[in-house]
């Protein structure tokens, strides 16, 4: 493969090239620093879970990975291509590798559930209507939603919306999946079903996944590595079994669900 001259420093070395390389990422909104120098390599085929306090910048970070937000400083490099340097055509091609589910669903409210999930299939493939319908039903079944195809988005509960968003994200079976709190606010059984979908994809498909969650149990189940985001920086990255043994006080409070003395710093 040819390396374009704009490709920055990170070229494949002896070890595997990261699927997504995040280099010194900074972002502030109206003078408030949200991300403060994040460095993180996401390996091909791994399932990375990001945890962190509410407002720590997890969603903002996830949106940087797919170029929905441009960083003030730093780079996001997907398969060796810098999202910031890529021109529009390349950018669309890079984005086609992604599927993303949003924290609030972000479903198209001018369409029903079926059309929402069928949207990426119709847009990017030449599947026949029959195949599209079959795939839509398959994805809905995975998230335990049957018989809602013809409901409108405003007729769904919050949890149903999130699951439809999840189904829409996986419909095209993309190379990289980003999930923003896919199982928050779901009952334990449905949440476990979502976890199982993620685990099955992790084990059977060559897909790279980044999932945000607040639920440490679910993080343990689905993660190859867990990263803790705090005050705009990566506090720690470790495989689940190591992660729970980390001695950092904030992480221990987080795991135990205890109040942390100066937690207000993040809320400010």
């Amino acid at each position, binding site marked *: 493969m040819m390396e374009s001259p704009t490709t920055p420093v990170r070229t494949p070395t002896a070890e595997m090239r990261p699927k997504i390389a995040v280099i010194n990422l900074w972002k502030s909104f109206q003078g408030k620093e949200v991300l403060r120098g994040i460095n993180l390599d996401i390996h091909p085929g791994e399932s990375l879970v990001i945890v962190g306090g509410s407002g720590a910048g997890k969603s903002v970070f996830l949106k940087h990975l797919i170029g929905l937000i441009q960083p003030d400083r730093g780079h996001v490099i997907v398969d060796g291509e810098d999202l910031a340097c890529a021109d529009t055509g390349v950018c669309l091609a890079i984005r086609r590798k*992604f*599927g993303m589910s949003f924290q609030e669903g972000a479903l198209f409210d001018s369409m029903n559930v079926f059309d929402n999930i069928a949207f990426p299939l119709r847009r990017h493939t030449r599947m026949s209507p029959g195949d599209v319908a079959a795939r839509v039903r398959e994805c809905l079944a995975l998230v335990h939603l049957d018989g809602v195809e013809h409901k409108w988005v405003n007729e769904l509960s919050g949890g149903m919306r999130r699951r439809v968003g999840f189904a829409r994200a996986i419909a095209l079976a993309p190379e990289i999946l980003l999930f923003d709190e896919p199982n928050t606010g779901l009952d334990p059984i449905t949440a476990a079903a979502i976890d199982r979908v993620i685990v099955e994809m992790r084990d059977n498909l060559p897909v790279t996944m980044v999932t945000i969650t607040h639920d440490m149990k679910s993080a343990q189940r689905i993660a190859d590595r867990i990263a803790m985001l705090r005050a705009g920086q990566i506090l720690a990255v470790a495989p689940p079994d190591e992660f729970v043994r980390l001695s950092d006080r904030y992480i221990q409070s987080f795991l135990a669900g205890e109040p942390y003395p100066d937690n207000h710093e993040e809320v400010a």
Partner: protein
Amino acid sequence: MSAPASRRRPIAALEWLGERSTHAFEEIGRFFTMLYLTLYWAVRPPFDLRQWVRQMVRVGVDSIPVVGLTAMFTGMVMALQTYRGFERFHAESFVASVVSLSLTRELAPVLAALMIAGRIGSSLAAELGTMRVTEQIDALQAMAVEPVQYLVVPRVAATTLMLPPLVALADGIGIAGGFGVAVGLMDANPVVYWEKTFQFLDLNDVFSGLIKAAVFGLILSVTGCSKGFHTTGGAEGVGRSTTAAVVMASLVILLSDFFLTKILF
């Protein structure tokens, strides 16, 4: 900048002025960026004909009643007013010419565009603004769909293409309204009135009105879309964008009307 201390009033005023003009330049920049992006994506596949048709129905067909009513009453009141005025120097026979000329060249395009700015410009801003604050536009981008191409191009194209036919219709209805008032209320001779209507009316008058209409359609739809696209701040932000879209589009329509008239005649 609220109530500055009187000592610092000049500085505060300058600050205020600076802020306002920065804001204005930002708006102008956004407008032309959106215009450029729309043209850029309009000529690139995929072409979504279904969307185009849907938007054309929404803009064109659904606007017929409001544009028709506006035109009819404008034509009627024009006839009434000019008749009263021209009576004073016995020039009643020119009422028909004045009504048809002012309608086709000026009133039908501008009034129709203002009505559509209220109807369509606002709904574009509200629709795209809602999609922005509920992250639907982000979702489109995440699915490798260019939102300007998918959302803005069909809406701008439909508005630009549908305004000329709407204005042509308004021309006809307005002239008929004038005819009705003149003949029905003012006892004008129908045959003479009809003749006078077209005596001085040039095809160019009609065309210049239709060109104006297309430009107004472009302006109001790009304004609405750009306002919607740059919405921030939840439901309240959508409300702000909607109002701003109508106000801005109306002002720019009136402003550009002057220059277009200067250029086109």
